[in-house]
């Protein structure tokens, strides 16, 4: 099981449509709209690295996405 955070930056004025498209993508554990250097933080849980690439590709193909930054989780502690 591979988990990762994908940090997404969008072009101004595209946030709503990007979110709508993003909510259609499978295997996304959570989608958060944030205020900061990035606009959206997506958490992904996939079986293989190849699946992660597929999701990243899908996000890239959404109109309005400017840049993404993928952070693969090596170790996680959570509630």
């Amino acid at each position, binding site marked *: *099981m591979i*988990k*990762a*955070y994908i*940090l997404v930056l969008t072009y101004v004025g595209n946030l709503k449509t990007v979110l709508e498209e993003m*909510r259609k993508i*499978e295997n*996304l*554990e*959570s*989608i*958060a*709209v*944030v*205020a*900061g*250097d*990035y606009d959206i*933080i997506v958490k992904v849980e996939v079986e293989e690295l190849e699946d992660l690439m597929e999701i990243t590709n899908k996000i890239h193909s959404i109109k309005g996405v400017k840049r993404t*930054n*993928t*952070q*693969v*989780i*090596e*170790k*996680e*502690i*959570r*509630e």
Partner: protein
Amino acid sequence: MRIRVRKKNLFYLLAITSSVIGAVVTVIDTYISLEYNINPWSLCLVIFIAGIVITFILSVILSIPIGGKPLGARIDPSFPGLRLLRKEEVPYQIMAGMGNAIATVGYFFIISIYQDPSTILSFFEVVILYLLITESIAEKNAPSMAEVESSIIVTFGAIMASFSFTGGLNLKGLLIVFLVLNPAWVVFSIYQRKLKLLRINGRHNDAINIRFWNLFFTTIFTAILVYFIDTKHFFAAIDALKYWPIMFLSMGTTFFSYIFYIRALGLGKASVTQAVKSSTIIFSIPLSFLLASYIPLSFYESIPQLVIKVMGIILVIMGVISFALTEVRAYIFIKAKTGHSSTDLINDIWAIKGVTAVAAVAGRYDIISKVRMRTLGKGYERIIRELEEINGIEKFEWHSILKEWEEI
């Protein structure tokens, strides 16, 4: 396709659905106690025996695969079908089963010795505060002041709404509630939550298996307790099984109330879940009105009592709303200094109150942490100040979450 919803909305939806179904159970149970002449001890046992049978039947039905997934996955997406108990669940189930059995026997003990136990039993609502205290001691995320305030409002409201003027108050009854019933319920709630948070085969544990196996242990412990209290009650319980249709109705409905309750426990704190579940009192009123034409149910004995009841209900609603209102969440991206162990660093960050997840990542940052707090001010006081004290952090970036959807 799986549904993505806002976690907070889902928590309240589950807890309130559980309360509405719980209100139906309250009305059915009132009907049983008025219409059937079963002594409280036997009723206590027979309801569990009938409960385990109907829960097994319902769980088997919910295990039938439809469209590649068990039917029950529509109620709890983690449900893989009825399965055997896992080794890691056994100690938690034993504790939850004992808690449930002792709380139930305590409840029936009060019913068996007092003619009108409603005044004494209304103090069961104080269990919210017990849970709050337990969480303050045992859990990493101690309740905030706002949660303490809301809990007190809900508890007092629930006591007022269920208080009866006719029933007497006495020390023995109150001691049973405060020293037996409430602590046992705390054990039951806390261990059910622990079970829900367990991961089975890499996925969240499901509410249906938790409920089935909990009833299994509860029935065993209750049977032992009732047998030792008086063997004749034990055998009278077996005889009372002839009323199985109404018992099945009561425990079948209870099953669904618990499924939603256990799912809510997996999303929120036990104290907050219990507080939201107190709204059962409110939902049981219209249902009692509907049934009043068939069975003799009374809502209030006097106008002052009605006034207090209404005030109590308003307090419960206000308290639940104030729970739901304020919560701020954020992601913190952390860059570590070279030469520091990332294991130590994530453990140091995890020790900060309010941190709900911390992950060592490979990429532009070294650690991504998720935090939860009541206000941004608290976030500064509690989280940023402590982060700044940790040796090994080069810099961090704060991203406040404005809106979030999660997979359920």
